[in-house]
Every structure is written in structure tokens, then in C-alpha cells.
């Protein structure tokens, strides 16, 4: 697959690049951002995937979160893809900000007209890693994943559905239980239809209940003043209860005064990167 470099900027001794390619899963051109730390010049580095939230693209994480210093210090390659297929000209994809463009919800859609293009789950777990492994100095055995809001949901489900694939997972204000919140219901009914059993396969709280697999260490930061938390869109309590039940290690931090924005992410991004580095560089 041919990669076209869109931009490259030096940052903290490494390079922040943006590429475009033709995606097979999504049947359109997709952009993604990749940060190559200084260590990547001399050897393979672990890979850390970031999934952005609703309305995000590959740009917001790389410009707003201030993650570069920590990534450079710990020697991690950080990949940030777009949040949904773009330019597919599907009717209705731009009607709302929480469904369609910028709101892929990291599922493989089964309903028309979405099922041809909206296959973000497969893109993130299969196509993109293959592409990255083939084109960049990354160690395919050492991968971790994290994200914000919808991307937090994405990170959790990717990790829970693929035990052992990721060495660690973390999230900022994730949508923990989409089955029970308005966002999730809207997206899943649109992408997956009305059969709720199909929805469970993409719900972190549900997946935990039947998680068989290897040890995970999950770090979650949640702003206490996050309006979506108060609106009941995020539902972390359900997830924590499920994890406690199943003895899945989670450290959940409720951060006083912080909201849902990138200011919140920027404050704690270093802690998260260190969390991943601990496992990726072990």
C-alpha cells in the first residue's frame, strides 16, 4: 500500500508526520499521524495507538495534547488515525456530530449504507497495524492502545476483544457502557441495527464480564467536571463494578475540576504515556 507523506515536523528530537493512504477496509483515502521518536532512527520501537473522540481527526491529538516530550523520552512510536472514513459521500453522514463522519465508534457496521465503508474496528485492529509494521521501525510484538471519549471506548474494546494483543490500555473519559447511553444507542442502532446482542460485542462493560484473558492493567482518568459524565454518557461506574467483579486491575482517577477537553488530556498525558512505557519498555 502506497503511503503518501503529507507533512513532517521535527518535534522533541523526533518527527511528527502525517500520511495518507488508500484503505481497503474503508474504501477511501485515510489519513493518519505518526510520531517517530529519536530512538526510531537506530532501532525498532514499541507502538502506541491513540484513538480520538467524537468529531476528531488525526490532527487534534498531535496538536493539542502535548504528548511529544513523553513519547520522545520513552522512545515510543505513537500512531493517531482519523476517527471515521471520510469523503465517502454517504447520505446522512454529516447530519450530526455524534454519528457518521467523525463518529465511527470503532465498530464494523453491518447496516446499509454504512457497512461498505464504516469498518473502523477492522481498520484499527488489522489494516492499520499491518501498514505501520511494514513501513515504520516498530516492534510488532509490543503494542498498546489508548484514547479519549469515543476513542477511549475504542481502546477498551480493542483490548478486551483481543486479549494479549496489547500490552496495556488506558483511557481519558471513555464511553464505558455505550449500550446504556444515548450516544451508544444512536450509533449502534445506525451501524449495527436493532439487534442488541450485536451491540454487546462492542460494549466494554459487557466485554469485561466475559474477558478470559491475560492480565491487563487499565488506567482511566476522568474529569470530575466533565459535562458528559454528568449527562450520563460515559458511565464509568458500571465498568469499574464489572472490573472489580472480574478482578481486572483498573486504577480509575476522578480528577477534580477537569472537564472533557484537551486541556484535561494534556494535563495527564504524561502519566498515561509512562503507564504504557512501563509495559512496552519492560
Amino acid at each position, binding site marked *: 500500500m502506497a503511503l503518501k507523506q503529507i507533512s513532517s515536523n521535527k518535534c522533541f528530537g523526533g518527527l511528527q508526520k502525517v500520511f495518507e493512504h488508500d484503505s481497503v477496509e474503508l474504501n477511501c483515502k485515510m489519513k493518519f499521524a505518526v510520531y517517530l521518536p529519536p530512538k526510531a532512527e537506530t532501532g525498532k520501537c514499541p507502538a502506541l495507538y491513540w484513538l480520538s473522540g467524537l468529531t476528531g481527526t488525526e490532527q487534534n491529538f498531535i496538536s493539542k495534547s502535548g504528548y511529544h516530550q513523553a513519547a520522545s523520552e520513552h522512545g515510543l512510536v505513537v500512531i493517531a488515525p482519523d476517527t471515521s472514513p471520510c469523503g465517502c459521500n454517504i447520505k446522512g453522514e454529516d447530519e450530526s456530530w455524534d454519528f457518521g463522519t467523525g463518529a465511527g465508534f470503532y465498530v464494523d457496521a453491518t447496516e446499509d449504507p454504512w457497512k461498505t465503508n464504516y469498518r473502523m474496528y477492522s481498520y484499527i485492529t488489522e489494516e492499520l497495524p499491518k501498514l505501520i509494521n511494514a513501513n515504520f521501525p516498530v516492534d510488532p510484538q509490543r503494542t498498546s492502545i489508548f484514547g479519549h471519549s469515543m476513542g477511549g471506548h475504542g481502546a477498551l474494546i480493542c483490548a478486551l476483544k483481543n486479549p494479549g494483543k496489547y500490552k496495556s490500555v488506558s483511557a481519558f473519559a471513555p464511553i464505558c457502557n455505550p449500550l446504556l447511553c444515548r450516544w451508544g444507542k444512536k450509533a449502534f442502532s445506525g451501524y449495527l441495527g436493532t439487534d442488541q446482542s450485536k451491540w454487546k460485542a462492542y460494549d466494554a462493560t459487557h466485554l469485561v464480564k466475559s474477558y478470559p484473558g491475560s492480565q491487563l*492493567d487499565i488506567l482511566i482518568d476522568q474529569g470530575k467536571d466533565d459535562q458528559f459524565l454528568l449527562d450520563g454518557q460515559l458511565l464509568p461506574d458500571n465498568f469499574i463494578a464489572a472490573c472489580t467483579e472480574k478482578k481486572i486491575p483498573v486504577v*480509575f482517577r476522578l480528577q477534580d475540576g477537569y472537564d472533557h477537553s484537551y486541556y484535561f488530556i494534556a494535563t495527564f498525558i504524561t502519566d498515561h504515556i509512562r503507564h504504557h512505557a512501563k509495559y512496552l519498555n519492560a
Partner: protein
Amino acid sequence: MEEESGEELGLDRSTPKDFHFYHMDLYDSEDRLQLFPEENTRRRKEVVQAERANESTGAGDGKAQRDLQEEVEELVHLYGLEDDHELGDEFVENMPRMGVSEYPPYGMKRRDPAREQRDWRLSGEATEAEDLGFGGWGSAGQCQDLREVYRYTHGRASEEYECYVIPEEEDEEEAADVFCVTCKTPIRAFQKVFDEHKEHEVIPLNEALESAKDEIHKNMYKLEKQIIDMENFANHLEEVFITVEENFGKQEQNFESHYNEILETLAQKYEEKIQALGEKKKEKVEALYEQLVSCGENLDTCKELMETIEEMCHEEKVDFIKDAVAMADRLGKFLKTKTDVEISTQPDFEDQTLDFSDVEQLMGSINTIPAPSAPVINPQTPNSATGSSVRVCWSLYSDDTVESYQLSYRPVQDSSPGKDQAAPSPPIIKTKEIRSCEEAVLICWESGNLNPVDSYTVELTQAESPEASGVTESVVGIPTCESLVQLQPGQSYVIYVRALNTGGPSTRSEPATVHTIGSYFRLNKDTCHPWLTISQDGLTILRSERSTPTKEPPPSDTHFTRCVAVMGNLIPVRGHHYWEVEVDEHLDYTVGVAFEDVPKQEDLGANCLSWCMRHTFASSRHKYEFLHNRTTPDIRITVPPKKIGILLDYENSKLSFFNVELSQHLYTFSCQPHKFVHPCFSLEKPGCLKIRNGISMPKHVTFY
């Protein structure tokens, strides 16, 4: 100096170094749009003022240079202008494009106002523009402007612009295309053949341009450098100035004190001399007075005799003879006694020789630097000596000027080897109270002697070579029964202590072993709450099931009374310390660190002298709090830790807690321990806590 515009006038008329600029206002023309001239010149003036203001940080020394700079900038601008003009078709290709970019620092600043000047001039002439496509200026439009200006400059367009022309060369209407080096003026090629330029050396105009530009460039660099140099110099001068003030102050003080000393000495001498003279005078006067008195007596006697004799002469013969004989005896006797008519004292005083030698000496010493006072040697600090070296520290008076010190020493022998004193007995190391970390060990011991001991010596050997009798390190002169010794990490040491008095050193104490892996401490029984028991090895805390008495123990300063807690004795050394605590899932416990003087009547974490993690298990729910000053962040942990790792990092002011089995980081406090802290543990319900220490940090902890 006057900032004058009219650049297009002077260029080809006068020598490069010596432009005359004329105010455009002087020349009136109906085609000139009257609106702008002042503005533009003003603007240019403003730009220049701004530049001047920016550059006037120096001490004003560059003023002359700046003026020169102005002229140079004018020149630059003109040359820049000149570059893009069409001097003739043959020069189009030769036009040095770099000409424009060569002058970015100066030229760029000037471009804008200049451009505006051109703009207004151009507004009536836009239609006449040709497109030369000069990329250097960045836009064809600008080139157009320049060309127009150029036309004005050279009066090519029409006679109406003749008024711009300096009277010197009225007939010059064509472009100059060569440069006469001799006259230093551009001329037309044909002129070479005629007139005064016949014999002169001529070079093509663009060559001349190049060389002139180079020269200007060089000069500009030189000027820049000079500005920097001057500024540095000005700063330096300021410093020197301050130093001069200081030195003056010192000298003044010095002189004043000396001078006062001299004056005092002189005054004193004066007093003394005057007093001596006074005494002398008194002596003389008294002596004279005595003489006077005796003289007077003599006189009286004489007079009396005289009178008697006279009386006698008037007596009868018989009486007269009787008295006369007696009188004659008397007289004879009297006259025999010598009358002293010598004046006993001289009226003159001797010349006093005034002795000013000491004053002279004082005056002589005014100019010399006084010798410094003797330094004071600090008393020897413990641990400052080894078997073969000793560290000596001293202090000096700040008023003294000292060039160097001389240190000399000599071994001191006891006058007699403590004849009566026997060497002391060896001390006993308190092995249970040894505290260590990766870099040091704190040992304490009992004196082992009833009599006082002068000092102790600690001897260390690395345990790898126990046979080697060579002591690798010894610390002497320890006054108390404890010592903090620096060690290498990751080693094992065997330690001995000796006592020392005038009778000599004792034999070695029983050895103690220290491993510099991790941090090792024991629990401090003195701090232990009465309801807790500590195991023999000092590492397990037990709160028994026995029904606890309803009354709380009375308050105490040393041991905990409210919180059922105990503290450890951590070595007071900064750096990293790591230890682990084994807990039971259902146990209510608190673990963390606290200052030694944490209030013992309060709960751990309830004040700002302690930081700890508290676990409470109630109604099948685990609650975790990270307490300091009664506040805790809101943290949920899904898997209760069974072994908690605690990392105390003095360097980064952090205290971190980990779930050791999962290598999971739980929480980190940012705390700033201004003194040393100690581990603390408490049990809110019956149960036990097992401490593991003296272990090195697991890898996952190192990330924090």
C-alpha cells in the same frame, strides 16, 4: 542630523560616499500628488527613529556611527533601487538579483516606506508599466514602480522633471553605463572618449556597482561589530566604575582609622609633655620659694643684730663692754655661718626633645595593608578523619585581605603513654538498630565502658574479602555512640567499632554486617501504640483479637495513643527508599510516611505531617484513600493489592504506592519533606502487617 529623502536625485550625480540629499518638498511639480511627500518622509523618519531607539541601548558611543549608518542605509537603498532599474538592455541579465537580498537587515526595513513613496507617485502612471519580471523584488508591480521612479530620476520621461535635476549636469539625459574610477562618477560610454575622462580608467557600471556594494557591505559588518564592541565596553566600564567606588570606600575607611590613630597618639604625647613641664615648673618654683624664705630669715636676723648693736652703742661704758663682748661673739658666730647667696635653681628649662618616633611609625604604616588576623581553626568534626588523613577547616575575618594560607602540622606525642590508664573495652554494636540504605549506614552502639571514653573509631571491610586484615576504611574521632557512614550500593560490609582513650584503642567490637541493597529499617518500639505488638525481628506488626480496653491510653509524645500505629526508623539519608508491606485484603490498614514529630494523638494522614494510603473494607466494598492533611483524591481500584510497594523519592519529592504483584502503579503524592520522614503503619482492625525491606526496587517502580 537631518534625514533627507530625494534618493533618486543624488545617485548618478555625485560620488558614492558623499551624497547630497534634497527635500522633495523643495521641488514643486503639478504632477506630484501633494498628499504624500511629508507623510512619507515622516514615515521614513519614524522608521529611522525607531531604529535609532532600538539601537540606543549602548552608551551613546555609536552616535557617530549611527549617523554614518543612516547615510549608508540611504546608499543601500539607492543601490537597491538602482539594481532593478533598466540601465540599458544589455544589463538586464547582468542584474545582480542578490542585490536585493543582500541587504535584508537594512534594506528591508526601508522598503515599505520607500515603496509607499513610489506608490503614490505611480498612481498616475500605472499604464506605462513594462513587465520586466524582476523576481528580486517579489512582485512585478513593484518593479513597475521602480521603473517609473527611475524614469523620474533620470528625467527621461519628460522635461517637467527637470526640476529634480541638480544643476551640475543639465544636459545629461541618457543613462550612464560605465564608471569612471578616476573621477568616481558614472558616465556615458561616449564620454570616455571626450572631455575630462579621456585619460581616466573606466570600468563597466555594474562592476563598479558590485565593488561599491561590497565595500558598503563590509563597512556595514564592521559597524555592526563595532556597535557590539562598544556596548560591551560600556558595560565593562560600568562594572569598573562600581568597583572603583567600592575600592575607594575601603581605602577611605582604612585611611580614616589610621589617621585617627595618629591623631590620638599625638594628642596623648602633648598631654604628657605638658604635664611633665608643669611638674618641672612646680619644682623650680618651690625650690626658689624656700630659698626666699631662708633668705628672709637671714635678713631678719641681721636686722635684729643691727638694732641690738645700735642700742648697745647708746649704753653706759660698763654695760657696753659687757654687751659688746657678747655681741662680738654672736656676730662672730653669725657671720661664720655661710649665707648661701647662690640661687638654687636655674630659671631656664631644658630643651625638650620630643619623641615622635612612634608617630612616624604609624604614619609609615598607613599605606600598608594590615597583616591579617590569625584564622580560627574549627574544631574537628566527627567523621572528618581516616587512618591517614584529616580534614581541617578554618575561618577568617572578612576584613582581612588574604593571599594564601600556610598549613603546618606536627604529630603530637603523649608526654607519657597514659601511665595509669588502661585501654578501654570494646563497644557493643546495637545490631538491631542498624539502619541502612543503598548509600549509607547508620550504626549505633553502647560504649561498653564505665569510664568515659575519648572517642570511637568505626572500621569497615568489604565482606567479599573477610580474610584480608587490611581495613578498607576507618572513621576516627567520633564523639558519640553513633555514626553515619557513606557506602557503595550493592555491597556487603562488615563493621567494627573501637573505643579510644589516652590509654590507647580498645580491641575491635563484635562485627555487624550491613548489605547496601534497598533500604533497611526496623520498627521503633518507642512509638508503638500499646495495643500493637511487634515481632522479634522488628518487621511484623500485630494487633490482636483480644477485646481492646474501652479506654484509650493517655496522651503521650513518643508513642501513638489514638491511632493504633507504629513508626519505623528510616536512615536519615536523602535519595530513594523502597519497602513493601504485605496486607490482607479484608484488613483495614494505613501505610505511608510521617515526620518524627507527627502528632501522636491524631490519625495518620489527618495532618500535614503525614502522607499515607488507607484501605477500608466495609460491606464487601474496598475503599482506598490517599490521605494528607485530611484530603484525598477520588481513586477507585478494582483489584485490592496484597502487597504494597512504597517508594520514597527525596530527590523528586515524591511518595508512590504500587500493587507489587501486578506491577501496577496506584498513586503518587508530590510531597516536599523538609526534614527526614519515617515509614508509618497503622491497623484500624485486628490483623497483621508484614514489612519487607532491604530489597532493591523492582523495574516497574523505576519508571516513577
